[in-house]
Each structure stands twice: as structure tokens, then as C-alpha cells.
């Protein structure tokens, strides 16, 4: 069965955008990189493989684009000092704190975490994208979470006082 590149892209666009949004920390750049994935996909023959593997193929392209972006920009954009803008709304402060915390993770741990939390990929898919075993993915995700938990203790403590859903969606 032939996979239409446009159908594949449209089905995964929100996941790609969310992944890029946290990977690069800027809305405009995330939008551009999401579009770049489409350009690349439309120029290439989509591999004739099962669904889960097609998504892994798509995210491998996305990951390479994110890594290229970081190499070009020397990982400058992510950290934003919280003290710089005291008038910033609380949600933006949390956003900036999350970006700062993510920037302290290794590239691989951050990507593994983002592919799970932002893109909703399963451990098997992430393993294919990053050339790891599913067990290694589980270890890295848990390690990344513990590091982020330590760095984001304040917003986490605040969030614990509000009803939550297991999925992370707002109740």
C-alpha cells in the first residue's frame, strides 16, 4: 500500500509541532521546522513499512532537523532567565522554566522525553528513531523525568494542588 506523503504529514502535524515547540523553544521556528518536514517528506518516497515504522521514519527526519537547528544556533535560544521579565504572566514563566530545564538535559534524553511527552510516541517507535532498545528508552525517559522533577520542583508543587488527569490534559 502506498502512503500519501501529504496524508502522513497532516496526520502527524500536531505531534511534530509540539515536539519542535519544546525542542527549539520558539513558536515561529517550530512552525518552520514542521513545514520543513513536509518539504522533505514530499521530496522522498515514503518507505513501504508498517504504520508504527512510518511514524518513526517521520520523526527521524524531524529529529535530524532539530539537531541541525541546534548545531546552527549553538543551542542559544532555549534558556531564558526568569528574572529578566518580571511582568511576564505566570504561564510564560513556567514555560520559560520548562525550556531552561529541558536545555540542561543531554540531546538524547531530551529528544526521548519530548517524543514521548509532546509527540506521544511509544517506546518502540522512539527506540527506532533514536537507535536504542525499548528498555533503554524507558530508562532514559525516567531519568529525564527525575531530572526535570528536581529542576521544576516549584511549578510541580503548585500543579499538585490542582485536580489533574493521568493523561496530562486539563481536567
Amino acid at each position, binding site marked *: 500500500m502506498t502512503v500519501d506523503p501529504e496524508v502522513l504529514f497532516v496526520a502527524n502535524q500536531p505531534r511534530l509541532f509540539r515536539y519542535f515547540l519544546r525542542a527549539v523553544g520558539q513558536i515561529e521556528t517550530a*512552525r518552520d521546522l514542521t513545514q520543513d518536514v513536509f518539504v522533505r517528506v514530499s521530496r522522498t518516497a515514503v518507505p513501504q513499512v508498517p504504520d508504527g515504522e512510518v511514524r518513526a521514519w517521520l520523526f527521524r527526519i524531524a529529529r535530524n532537523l532539530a539537531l541541525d537547528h541546534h548545531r546552527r544556533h549553538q543551542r542559544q535560544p532555549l534558556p531564558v532567565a526568569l528574572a529578566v521579565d518580571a511582568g511576564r504572566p505566570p504561564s510564560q514563566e513556567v514555560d520559560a522554566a520548562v525550556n531552561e530545564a529541558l536545555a540542561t538535559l543531554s540531546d538524547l534524553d531530551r529528544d526521548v522525553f519530548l517524543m514521548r511527552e509532546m509527540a506521544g510516541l511509544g517506546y518502540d517507535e522512539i527506540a527506532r528513531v533514536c537507535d536504542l532498545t525499548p528498555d533503554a528508552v524507558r530508562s532514559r525517559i525516567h531519568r529525564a523525568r527525575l531530572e526535570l522533577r528536581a529542576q521544576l520542583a516549584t511549578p510541580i508543587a503548585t500543579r499538585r494542588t490542582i485536580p489533574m488527569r493521568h493523561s496530562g490534559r486539563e481536567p
Partner: protein
Amino acid sequence: MNMNDTHEVISAFLDDEPFDPSALAAALSDPEGRAQLIDLIALRHVTQPGREAIAAMQPKRRSGLRALLAAAAMVVALVGGYAIGQRQSESGRSEAPPATSVLEAPAAWQRLPSGGQ
């Protein structure tokens, strides 16, 4: 195996991945394991991008406005066309045609043969 390893099962549980129920039970029997479970769910909420950011992905929806503008343009064209047509038809029938003169042949009039015959 350190504490992080024993508690990895919590991440597998959160991510809806296969996990060993006895390992989860062991992890949750530890107060730190229970705290991790709650904190990691809170972390999931904290790290989600805001609604504004997600909305920024969508191209601005102009289709509704575009349809409205197209309908408005159609109405203007129809009303304008009708008004112009009315005006032209009114100006067309304002003047009566000139009077027709009828000439009658005199009684002495004769038809001559053609070709000089």
C-alpha cells in the same frame, strides 16, 4: 539496581507501556515511589505547551470571513447591476419616436415600363 531503576516501572505505567504489576506494587509501597507517581503526572501537566502556543500552529482561519466577503460582493454586484439596468431602461423610454409622414401618389401618377421599354 538503584532506586531510579526500581521506579522506572512508574514511567512505564504512566506511558501505558507494558509493566510488571508486582514491580509497580513494590514501587508504590515506597513513599518516594508514590510521591514520584504524583509528581510525574504533575510534571506532564507542567511541560505541556500552553493553548496559545498550540493555537499558533493552526493557520489563521479566514475561510468564514472569505465566504462572507464573497457573499457580500455578490449582493453588491446584483443590486448594482439591477440599479444600473433600471436607470438605463428608464432613460431609453423617455423620448417618443418621431412622427411618420405618409406620402400618397397623385391621381395622375403612372407606372412606366422598366428598361426603357
